């Protein structure tokens, strides 16, 4: 992992956490605390977000995009940290399935994140130091509560749609359960009503990798001018495998050697797949905070929609008038189709209006971020139908 050894730029990441570039920031003062599931209040706090398109006069065309574990709010424009295009530009843009000429897109950085919304990398107003492990442990429901407060700030009562994949999909489900009246349509993609034991196990391996790095310093690496880059990179490498599939890895890399004809009989990255993973790990640590990774994985682990209503998930959606479109991918083994089917069963049992499509692909869990024409057709069709029902006008 040679390139992981470059000097950490902790200061610049800390700056991004407090004063994010190319972002809007909503600051909620001490008078409006965020009540957390952990039983404590967070105040003051801030939410970084991006918007695209225009809010109509009726304020009825807002679409909230919830990002995944390591995503951010730069969903449809260049990411100021990486310089790369927005993570869902295939889906969101002029004339795209989530059409910014028709809808007003809001994408906030998630609570606990490291790109401008309050999280462990942000400055604790009480100490003037980064929160680190002093930051309260948060849940998916806390993230959604924070987003609802942002919408109050923006004076948007009802969302036309909430969409997201993976951890974003969990937030979508939580939105529909917590604020059914504020969600006209919901698009949970590649997610589940609870995090499985296997997924918690994978997360624990990732967290242990971070915490085993001596540079982690019990979460105080900012103050001690250290950075657990190796630990975080290993966590990312492990997690990244779960986002792909055996077939996709084999198609992409097979057993091909990296820039060499023969094995070196060493522990160099002989195989292309090793080199690829190392690159994934090292580029991730350039843009992500290790403590944020701990907090967000924890929030996913705690997610269990059924537990909030005596184990009957259907009760979470009782009486919901929200229109749902659930999507899964055949090769996704992190959030397999069976999990989406459980969502659909619960929605059916509660009488909700639900569509469900499974898309054939070998790209694994990450398929929701990639070029999947069938996914685009389904999202477009679902939103068109919902827009008709909502009385939204077509484009410009």
């Amino acid at each position, binding site marked *: 992992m040679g390139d992981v050894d470059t000097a950490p730029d902790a200061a610049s990441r800390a700056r991004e956490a407090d004063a994010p570039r190319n972002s809007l920031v909503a600051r909620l003062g001490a008078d409006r605390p965020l009540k957390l599931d952990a039983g404590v209040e967070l105040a003051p706090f801030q939410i970084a977000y991006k918007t695209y398109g225009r809010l109509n006069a009726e304020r009825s065309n807002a679409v909230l995009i919830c990002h995944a574990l390591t995503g951010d709010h730069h969903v449809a424009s260049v990411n100021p940290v990486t310089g790369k295009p927005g993570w869902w530009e295939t889906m969101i843009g002029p004339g795209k399935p989530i059409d910014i000429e028709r809808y007003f897109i809001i994408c906030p950085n998630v609570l606990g994140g490291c790109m401008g919304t309050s999280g462990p990398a942000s400055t604790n107003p009480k100490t003037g130091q980064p929160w680190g492990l002093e930051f309260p442990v948060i849940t998916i429901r806390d993230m959604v509560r924070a987003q609802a407060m942002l919408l109050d700030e923006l004076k948007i009562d009802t969302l036309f749609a909430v969409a997201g994949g993976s951890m974003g999909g969990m937030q979508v489900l939580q939105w529909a359960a917590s604020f059914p009246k504020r969600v006209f349509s919901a698009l949970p993609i590649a997610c589940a009503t609870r995090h499985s034991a296997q997924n918690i196990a994978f997360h624990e391996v990732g967290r242990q990798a971070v915490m085993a790095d001596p540079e982690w310093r019990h979460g105080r690496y900012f103050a001690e001018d250290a950075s657990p880059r190796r630990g975080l990179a290993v966590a990312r490498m492990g997690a990244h495998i779960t986002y792909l599939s055996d077939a996709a890895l084999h198609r992409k890399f097979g057993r091909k050697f990296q820039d060499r004809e023969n094995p070196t009989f060493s522990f160099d990255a002989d195989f292309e797949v090793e080199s690829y993973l190392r690159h994934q790990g090292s580029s991730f640590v350039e843009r992500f905070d290790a403590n944020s990774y701990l907090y967000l994985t924890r929030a996913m682990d705690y997610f269990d929609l059924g537990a909030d209503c005596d184990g009957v998930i259907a009760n979470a959606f009782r009486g919901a008038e929200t229109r749902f479109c*659930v999507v899964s991918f055949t090769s996704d083994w992190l959030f397999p189709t069976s999990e989406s089917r459980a969502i659909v*069963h619960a929605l*059916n049992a509660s009488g909700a209006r*639900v*569509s*469900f499509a499974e898309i054939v692909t070998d790209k694994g869990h990450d398929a929701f971020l990639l070029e999947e024409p*069938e996914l685009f057709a389904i999202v477009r069709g679902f939103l*068109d139908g919902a827009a008709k029902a909502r009385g939204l006008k077509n484009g410009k």
Partner: protein
Amino acid sequence: MLSRLKRDLTMAEAARAPGGARVDLLLVADMVVPGSKVLDIGAGDGELLRILGEQRGVDGRGIELSREGVNECVAKGLAVIQGDADTDLADYPDDAFDYVILSQTLQATRRPRVVLEHMLRIGRNAVVSFPNFGHWKIRLQLAFGGHMPRTDNLPYSWWDSPNIHFCTIKDFVVLCDVAGAKMDRAVAFNAWGTPLRFNAPWWFWNLFGEQAVFLLSRRG
């Protein structure tokens, strides 16, 4: 499988009304009170749900077995999920719908009786349309040809047919009795989509009706 049957029905140029919609679907739609809540089992490419939505203002949901059919329906903005009539109806609560429709699908289910009983439990009404295996053309093929019948509507060889539970109109009436269904309306129509005389006797329907549509409700 179910959608394959429906596609073939379409390809066989099943009788069409002037507007282009299939007559059997229009007859099914005709039995549904406007504005009601409907579940279409075996939604195929969503044609019936589209008709119900556009012409009857129905709040429609669908189940379809084939992935292609489902994805086509969802892309059209219809509320359709991937599922199997034989296994997934058990997940629906009682009285969830005003009508549960099984259009050209009964003969492809593994347990038609259980499916019909679920339909009557989930919906206050059930609408079932099916090809009549007692039609004279079919009887002739079996009686004089000595082979399993094949028609424009039922074009499969016996070994690759999705249709595993054929019945005649007479047989279906027996199933209704066994499953506790009350027959509120019935229509049989010939190959050109013309409904047979309303007051014709059952044997006449059973012989000359190529397809039948029944509106059922729970008895008692």
